């Protein structure tokens, strides 16, 4: 729920595979934020965009995540988190694009961004229902994407939510 803080305790909780991932950060993915980004690197943004597009592909009257700029919105949210929490979330995002770690965690080295849409859905589905570690990572990135997408007023009409009433001329009733 909400832009979720992930606490990927690399090396703790018996997650030996992830201890390896912490030891092998991909140089291409790490690094400071670039362009207008506050927290994420350009590569992390791309990975997050790919995940968000499958969490909220749109259609049937709903805009896709990309149209709402969901990944960039998440970047702006991360700046408000404790830097340590934001770093944990960046690690979770990088995990989706780190072949060696993916091989250890899921048995396949293919990075998320290199998969077809159907394969990406299958990837997310397997992590959604997979090991505790996979579910934890899924929950973290899903929470980020779902909160950024489903809080956008542009989805209100599609879900039949009229939005907040206008209280400008509200006159309170006594006591109740």
């Amino acid at each position: 729920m909400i832009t979720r803080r992930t606490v990927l305790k690399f090396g703790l909780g018996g997650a030996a595979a992830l201890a390896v991932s912490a030891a092998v950060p991909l140089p291409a993915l790490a690094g400071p934020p670039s362009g207008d980004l506050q927290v994420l690197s350009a590569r992390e943004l791309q990975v997050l965009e790919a995940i968000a597009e499958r969490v909220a592909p749109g259609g049937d009257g709903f805009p896709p995540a990309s149209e709402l700029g969901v990944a960039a919105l998440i970047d702006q949210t991360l700046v408000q988190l404790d830097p340590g929490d934001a770093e944990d979330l960046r690690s979770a995002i990088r995990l989706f694009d780190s072949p060696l770690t993916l091989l250890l965690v899921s048995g396949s080295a293919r990075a998320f961004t290199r998969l077809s849409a159907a394969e990406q859905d299958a990837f997310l589905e397997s992590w959604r229902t997979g090991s505790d570690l996979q579910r934890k990572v899924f929950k973290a990135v899903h929470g980020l994407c779902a909160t950024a997408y489903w809080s956008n007023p542009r989805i209100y009409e599609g879900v039949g939510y009229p939005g907040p009433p206008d209280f400008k001329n509200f006159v309170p009733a006594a006591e109740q």
Partner: protein
Amino acid sequence: MSGFIRGGRELIEGGVTEETCDVCIVGSGAGGAVTAARLAEAGLDVVVLEAGGHYTKRDFELQEASAYPKLYQDGGARATSDLAISILQGRSVGGSTTVNWTTCFRTPERVLENWRRRHGVELDAAALAPHFEAVEERLNISTWDASLANANNRKLLDGAEALGWEASPLRRNVRGCANSGYCSFGCPVDGKQAMHVTYLPDAVRLGARVYADVRADRIEVKRGRVTAVHASVLDRATRRPAGPTLTVRPKVCALAGGALNSPALLLRSKLDHNKRVGRRTFLHPVVAVIGVFDDPVSGFYGAPQSVGSHQFIDRGEERVGFFMEAAPVHPMLTAASLPLFGDGLQSMMRQLDRLGVLLGLSVDGLIEGDEGGTVSLRRDGRLRVDYPIRPELAESFRASHEALARIQLAAGAREVLTGHKDPLRIRNERDLSLLDTVEYGAHRHAIFTAHQMGGCAMGADPKTSVVGLDHRHRGVDNLFVVDGSVLPTALGVNPSETIYGLAHRAATFVGEAV
């Protein structure tokens, strides 16, 4: 002399870096605000530090996208270390009272009896009554008219009645409530009698100085006494230290950062001489079920929580009891609670207007051996909350699912969905047996908490308690804890009124120590 509420920017522009006072209160929520008002009333010089920002009804945008980052701990992203339990906890001037759903109960006698028997906390209903009466009057706590209940709460009332179960309208701290449904975004009409419109202004009128955007980092203790509270001024937009600091030198310090934050501050200050700080942290862990109805429920409108059922609060000495209440059904909170994505999530969300959401809140800490969770610090000083789910709690989750599903069905739900990774679809009483085919616990289904309690437990035994019955820290003479972290167990009712009442009582002890 009138005091003020100032934000971080004003503090920096004013060049204020030091303060002296009789009492420094850390936190401006249910515990801190009541304590501040009582002490100011007694003529004491009070400074309140609040890490969150100061927002009023003019600032509340009533959008989930901005409300959670502004008004909740960790921008709404707080969770247990395994991410299994999402933690909703307020963070602004007024603390969780700014965003809570207004439900008020006095501490149940059954819980007080448990405290007397197991923790030596000699408090009874009669001793607490004057304190509750005072806060009930100030906050206009009274029973909500059942005829005003929104459809979501009505389902709880009607479903329980059809099953012959207890359910009743709740007491709420409101005055001039618009029945809008936006309690969790900050009340747009000041109908909710939250701390930023009641006890804090009371304290300010009597001279209290409230500093928002100021985070207490460390309590300095010399020769067994607090000599200073060291705080950082935060940037309102990023919530990160802006550079300037504030040092408060009080005669007495009272912690009211809430459960989780108060124990964390004690740990950062190395004030944990008996290794009990952070222990016995309780969460009222919550599971939710979603009823899909043929008619509109519009659970996003109307007072979010106005009916409750305590039918299963007492399930014997061996089993964890639970109580049932309703939740607001706004889009983001609903979507993020569902472990679905893509078309599955979208088709569910399309029905938002027809969804009813009920909650089962398990009462932790009452049965023998239930130690709840633990607050500790990560290596970099960040808060860490661990909460193992015991088999007794998992059993309560299952029982909660069944009771909530039966209520939804009895209230006319077409189907009831659980929060499991593959949600169960329960269409009739026979389908309830499906509940035996799935597991309960961490990462098996969604779990939340909106009630954080304990971590600085009150008790009679100096070896096992963090504070005594007078709220005084066991190792530091002029340090008190006056918030929900002192609760020895969870309550089995929404905790805000207990915190108001205990703070109202504790203020006397704090004042006497000046």
